[in-house]
């Protein structure tokens, strides 16, 4: 089914995940993690798991990104390693 879209999103998931791990700026990492969640949400939708996709969009891309950004603001923005 929809294999070109599937492949494109899977590639983006891997790129965004590695980016979130490698980036030095923690705020950037939080945003990249939100993008990762959104890509996962699209993947769930392609697989037909709409309920899971909805949860991923609300919790992963929405609420947890806000929590990460809040935590970064209250601590430090640069990572040491």
């Amino acid at each position: 089914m929809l294999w070109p879209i599937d492949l494109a999103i899977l590639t983006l998931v891997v790129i965004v995940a590695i980016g979130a791990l490698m980036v030095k700026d923690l705020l950037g990492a939080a945003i990249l993690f939100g993008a990762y969640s959104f890509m996962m949400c699209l993947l769930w939708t392609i697989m037909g798991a709409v309920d899971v996709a909805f949860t991923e969009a609300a919790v992963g891309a929405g609420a947890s990104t806000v929590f990460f950004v809040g935590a970064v603001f209250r601590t430090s923005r640069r990572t040491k390693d």
Partner: protein
Amino acid sequence: MKITGLIIVILVGGLLIYAAADFPAWSDPASPASTYLSPHFIEKTIEETSVPNIVTAVLADYRGFDTMFETTVIFSAGVAVFVLLRTFRRKEPEIRHYRHVLTGVTIRVKKGGKIPPSDDFERIDGLWTPPDLIIKTVCRFLIPFIQLFALYVIAHGHHSPGGGFQGGVILGASIILLAISQDLRTALKRIAEKLDAVLCAVGVLIYAGTGALCLLLGLNFLDYGALASVLHVDPITARSHGILIVEIGVGIAVMATIIWIYNNLSSGGKYNQGL
């Protein structure tokens, strides 16, 4: 240390990929999960619970015990953040700052001093950046619609994707949006800390209480068919209604926990003006 970590990650990842090859093919009708469990849910859900959305029925009825403890996990997360971060400052600081909303004049009030009780003054902490007028206004317009959509998601979980978890998160996010677009004190005026903490527990109580009620009425824990005599409907409709009651409980608990975590996280437990 980093290289050791990388080696472990590559090893475990390789093992997982190797194991994934043994999985049955995606949507394979002959796979073990699809031979007896899935057909039962697909064929019998509407007969047994009269809920068109099978996912909701599985989540809140067939596997209701699991979902109850998921809600408890979220509640525990809220309590953990509260215990770790919340600081109770007994004493008021020496100097407090108030801002006159209309003119933007900031006044310093020394300890023991009072300001006239009116809505013209708002309490601020040392640094204050004005909330952007456009963002503030647009968020004020958007928030009621977001909340309405959240209620729709909770109430319509029987027929379409959605349910207590998603609706609760969206409800909580609308209050967080208010806190971000203005400041935390504005959001705390809508939902105070105590009310929020109580709502957290009330949500879990509604879920567990429904289960206990079923037990008292003579059936198993969380067997909503027992509610038929209380709701004056047949047992199948009672299961549908039971799912709705439980979803409302989940929604309240999740909403309150999301707000609670955000409040503690964004203000570092001090409940001042937040981010």
